[in-house]
């Protein structure tokens, strides 16, 4: 993938917002890939967890917001537990979700769920799913 890196993007509002919402220092990541190695959901992700961080580091907002990786993330916190730099990757995933949700860009449209989908699962699944995927 060809990417254009600019100071304007790297020092832009998007990177600052992700850092603010996640409470993490994005540049602390040295891209070892340990988060992606232990992630249970990578088979469903179009980019890997370490690439999510890389995209943020480079300020590639538009490219990142097209990805599905942070929606597939189930906040299991395995990446956080294993990061050698102590970076909370799950918090970064949550920050990106929140940036979209705060603009009403929901990932799950509740009216589109079939009755069977809602009735067969326990309430704990619905509440947690809607909290992560809807605004």
């Amino acid at each position, binding site marked *: 993938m060809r990417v254009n890196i600019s100071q304007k993007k790297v020092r832009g509002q998007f990177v600052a917002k992700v850092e*603010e*919402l*996640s*409470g993490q220092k994005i540049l602390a990541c040295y891209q070892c890939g340990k988060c992606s190695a232990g992630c*249970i*959901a990578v*088979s*469903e992700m179009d980019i890997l967890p370490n690439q999510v961080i890389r995209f943020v580091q480079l300020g590639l907002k538009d490219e990142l917001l097209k990805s599905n990786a942070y929606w*597939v993330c*189930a*906040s*299991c*916190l*395995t990446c*956080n*537990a294993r990061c050698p730099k102590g970076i*909370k990757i*799950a*918090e970064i*995933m*949550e*920050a990106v979700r*929140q940036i979209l949700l705060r603009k009403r860009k929901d990932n*799950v449209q509740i009216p589109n*769920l079939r009755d069977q*989908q*809602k009735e*067969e*699962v*326990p*309430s*704990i*699944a*619905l*509440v*947690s*799913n809607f*909290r*992560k*995927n809807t605004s």
Partner: protein
Amino acid sequence: MKLGYYPGCTLKANAKNFEDSALCSLKQLGLEVEELRRWNCCGTVYSLTTDDLIHHVAPVRNLIFSKKANADALMTLCAMCYNTLKRANERVKKNPEDRDIINRFMDAEGLAYEGDVKVVHLLELLRDDIKFENIAKKVVKPLKDLKVANYYGCLLVRPKDIGLDDMENPRVLENLMTALGAMAVDFPYKTECCASYQTVDHPDIVAERTYKILTSARNAGAEVVTVSCPLCAFNLDNRQKATVEHYSDFEKMPILYFTQLLGIALGCSEESLRFDLHDVDPISVLKRKGLL
């Protein structure tokens, strides 16, 4: 220490087998817990962003209800409730500014929360207060020869300062099962996520997780798998229907709450074990082992 009991939503519905077997087991151990008179949803997942205080209102309100019931410790069974309540509790303990904002939001409760309720999981109560060696003495039906793989999932053990055991190799369930006379088998997927709430709109991901987790447990020799989270239980039990359709070599595996095995060992009646709520039948293997 007065202990309040917080059941959470799912224990009153899909996971009634978890609640009934736990309460019966505690009774057999000589401990009766009192359910909070008022409680609401814990929020199910802890908000991971720095500024999202509104999502901590629900768990903190439950801690206020606990104070109002004069309970200085709040016991949960559900791993998700445990994690969310404990994390919100730590948040307000460590951040007085956040605590004041959350308290002011709930001023109608008439009690400002100070972070002084202890959130405990039933497993901690059994391990640290009652102690497994004392439980072993009360076993009337040892789980002899039953090979049990213990599945922790995520929220009982992560993050480190919240989890009740080692993050990568927890042993508390194995130690409990051993005390009950069972054979605890080790398997590498015991702390690997079941895909959690993705079960609503991506049941295929859960089916894949179920295949990997349960096949790993079977290859390690397990006859049953124990859980302590109602969402793990639903995913690993109910989604086996979809797993069978996707993976031709998959063999079904009974899923049990650890409290159901505890209940059997302590002599609880079958009515309190509620095997009728299971999708994959656990009765045949338990009968084969002479446990029912």
